[in-house]
């Protein structure tokens, strides 16, 4: 039994190392005073300075933040509705429509939306098309999280509220929403991260106008790799890390209030 544990531990340690070493390398090289990601030369912050003087990158970051906030806002509302509906009613189409964009390869959604925006809506591709595209695939994630939380709950709480004469809206506001709040917050944060992170669908729906973060990073990687990429990466990692910490803090806060 012991020997088996050692086996498992070493296999798991390799997997964890595999997951973390690449990211550590990216962070370390962002402070390296050399244009090549090869040898350690010396400590510098010049790549960060270069980054903050890169106007296009700053615009791209601002655009991506706006997109992520709008997309996660829409996806959270629609996804929560979908999660509630799928838990409460036996629906045939909604679950398929909610899960399909999540389950299929991203490129298919990207291509389909590109054709749709250009042919049917005659829309100039840009921020709006990206927000719509991101909302489409984020709805599924929010719905899955919200439904998972609802599934573990006792239906009788909601029935009790209705029996006491609460309207559906009042039941939702006073009973359901506070109970599912952690899932809603988690869903919103997840949508935000997915939107900031998304490359494939953004790539197809971006158009030529406004620069956005993933595309800027892609261009830098493809055209001219400098440790500036490492600097952006490090800052983005910090951002997501902060979001996760906030999420856990918020989540436990909501949980505590619920127990009162």
């Amino acid at each position, binding site marked *: *039994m012991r*020997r*088996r544990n050692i086996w*498992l531990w070493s*296999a*798991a340690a*390799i*997997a*964890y190392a*595999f*997951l973390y*070493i*690449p*990211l550590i390398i*990216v962070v370390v090289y962002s402070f390296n005073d050399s244009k090549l*990601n*090869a040898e350690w030369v010396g400590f510098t912050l010049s790549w960060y300075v270069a980054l903050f003087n890169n106007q296009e990158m700053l615009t791209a970051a601002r655009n991506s933040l706006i997109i992520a906030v709008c997309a996660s806002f829409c996806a959270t*509302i*629609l996804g929560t*509705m*979908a999660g509630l*509906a*799928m838990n409460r*009613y036996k629906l045939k189409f*909604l679950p398929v*429509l*909610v899960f*399909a*964009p999540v*389950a*299929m*390869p*991203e*490129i*298919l959604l990207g*291509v*389909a939306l*590109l*054709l*749709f925006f*250009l*042919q*049917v809506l005659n829309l100039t591709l840009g921020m709006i098309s990206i927000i*719509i*595209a991101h*909302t489409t695939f984020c*709805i599924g994630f929010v*719905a899955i999280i919200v439904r998972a939380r609802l599934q573990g709950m006792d239906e009788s709480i909601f029935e009790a509220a209705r029996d006491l004469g609460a309207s559906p809206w009042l039941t939702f506001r006073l009973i359901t929403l506070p109970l599912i709040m952690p899932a809603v917050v988690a869903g919103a944060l997840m949508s935000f991260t997915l939107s900031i*992170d*998304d*490359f*494939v669908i953004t790539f197809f729906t971006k158009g030529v106008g406004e620069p956005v973060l*993933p595309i800027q990073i*892609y261009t830098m*990687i*493809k055209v001219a790799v400098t440790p500036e*990429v490492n600097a952006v990466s490090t800052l983005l*990692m910090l951002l*997501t890390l902060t979001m*996760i910490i906030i999420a856990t803090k918020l989540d436990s806060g909501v949980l505590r209030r619920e127990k009162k």
Partner: protein
Amino acid sequence: MIRNGAKEDRVTKWLVSGPPLAFLLVFFVTPSLIMLFTSLRFPGEFGGLAPITLPTEATQGEHGLTLETYELFFSDILYAEVFLKSFIVASTSTLICLIMAYPLALLIARSEKRFRNLMVLLVVLPFASNFLIRIYAWMIILGPESVFSHFINGFLSAFGVAPVTLLFSPFAVIVGMVYVHLPFMVLPLYTNLEKHDPALLDAAQDLGANAWQRFWHVTWPLSLPGVFSGSVLVFIPVLGMFAVPDILGGTGDILIGNLIKDQFLGTRDWPFGSTLSIMLMLAVLAITALATWLARPASITKE
């Protein structure tokens, strides 16, 4: 009174499910149908921004609907080769993910309860960093001047083997695919393994089964639903992935995704790009159906 309640309930049902349903009908179902429709049309004469003829002209000659792109797809062996290669890359990546993820998931599932969430979080955390950055990290590691490349080539030259280029190779593509999708395999496996009753293993041990037999005859068969769902979650995104081969692969490492991307942003042949997308969609549906079918008997024996 009851009737009134039922009516109110129906109204609520539509109020709650209506908006997401409407949104997805407009922005998911319609685009998919448009894609199917586009695959049946002729490419425009000018490669520019409007490569498809207007529907008003859709009556005569080259302006109607056609199966030409499908004929092209099935007549040229090149496309079958790309599909086959994509399947091979996806299978290999899935298998490596499974081999790496299984011990990790097993360890987490058998750890003390208070450590489990942290260990799962540690698997998901790298996943929260940007997708392109995770691929880019491997550009650094596998680059010709990297410590890792020097190490591998030093090792190879000790055996008299010529130095190899790690970056821009099928090897780099597989590594990138595995790295990007590993958490998708760990999570369903862990969710499954965590539910196993430890009493089953004790019983097997009491009956004289050794560690390997306990694994092979108890844990593994019970974990098959987790294996299948994890495999689908890795296989499908890998099959359609274009960013990893685009960044880590060489010119010959083109997969379905790259082919599709080129039709839309390179040659601008939208009908053929749509056809390729439809074929990819069919492949995905077939795999999902197969996995569901494979997972079924296992989940019945579990009950």
